[in-house]
């Protein structure tokens, strides 16, 4: 059975999989991952980040000031990486099976 991870959680964890990102970086990355279909708004993003930090899936990594603006970077924790790996593997397995069945079903050739 596929583990239960809500869509905003999955997208933010996926965005952070390649390395630490700041808030706006996560927003851009999520938009890029979903080919522009999903845009996370700032208020929603910080609601999700607060929750993920509290659950121990994401952590504040570092800070920098660029053009007078504070950027705080976030990264996956060990638990966050494990959850994302497990969920992504299960999703890939189900998707592969769905495609296999579609190819062999009658009338689809």
């Amino acid at each position, binding site marked *: 059975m596929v583990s*239960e*991870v*809500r*869509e*905003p*959680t999955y997208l933010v964890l996926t965005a952070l999989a390649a390395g630490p990102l*700041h*808030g*706006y970086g996560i*927003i851009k990355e999520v938009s890029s991952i979903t080919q522009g279909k999903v845009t996370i*708004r*700032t*208020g*929603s*993003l*910080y*609601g*999700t980040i*607060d*929750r993920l*930090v*509290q*659950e121990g*899936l994401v952590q504040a990594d570092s800070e920098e000031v660029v053009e007078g*603006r*504070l*950027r*705080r970077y976030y990264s996956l924790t060990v638990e966050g990486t494990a*959850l994302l790996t497990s969920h992504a593997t299960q999703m890939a397995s189900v998707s592969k099976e769905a495609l296999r069945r579609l190819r062999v079903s009658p009338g689809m050739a």
Partner: protein
Amino acid sequence: MTPLERRYGRLLSLYPKDYRAERGAEIMSTVLGTSQPEQLWPHPKEAVPLVGHALRMRFGLAESQPIGRLLVAIGPAQLILASLISVMSFLGAEWNPWWGRHVLPGGQVGPFQTTGFIAYVSWTAAGLALLFKNPKVTRRLVVLSMSITAVLVPFSRALSLDRPIPSLLAFLFVLGLPILVSSPQSLKGSVSDRLQKVLIAMSLLVAIAIALALLPVWNGSTVHQFSRGSYGLSPSILFYRTDLVFVATWLLWIDAAAIAVSAMLFFIGRRLLAGSVALSGLPLLVLWFGFRYLWFGFGYNDSTAHLLVGVVLVASSVALVCLSMLFPKEQAMERAR
């Protein structure tokens, strides 16, 4: 400071002071990153979620806060309960062709007994949207249903039409509150969550229990003398006459059972689930007290024992919710991700 920055700054001032001190500069940086170079005013698509998050943080309703987690956990279950009650009310009390010979005198609305059908249809649609996993539509329909429910009494009065009993409307309104105040994000994928499946199952059981409790009234076998006479015996007495207040004592026992389950869950360490179950039961008590007081007035005192039980149950529910917030540590990360 640019005009846009100043305007976003005003919105950020809605956050609680501590949170703003810790995260304000970072959030400002992010929200300015999403804006266009010549932009002067916050875009509504950014401003609305920002204000929503700020207010949820201020009132302790964000998902990172204990009460917010409880609301997210019980929201879908309570919406399902509201939908089931709406379907029951629509079929049992509103649809005249079904119960035609018992039509009440007064201002009916087409084939319906009261204006209540408008709210019932809307709540049912919201429940269906949730089951079909459409979070955006679900939330919009909940807002619509709550708005209709809130204005139904004055609307009916203005047009001289019959209305359903206000305590039922108040109950439906309360059931919608958790989804209204929770983050829109929280509904995404929430139906598949294990905890919520448990709560939805509980709501179904409660709805079935209420239906069973009402069966004697539907059959007309335990109708109180107050409702005999010109109105006759019909399902419509459910929402007009006094009988429900007597059978509604069932609600107390159902809630007592929920609190017993909640207490057990608390002591075995499933604290968030315990708090959610206790909080889920509170609307039942609202309904019970609503039937008592909105119908009879505060001077009504037919059964001190029941009143005492009701007060004890409210106190127990609140205590369990508070305990689960004060001691939120759980054995497993049970809650929705």
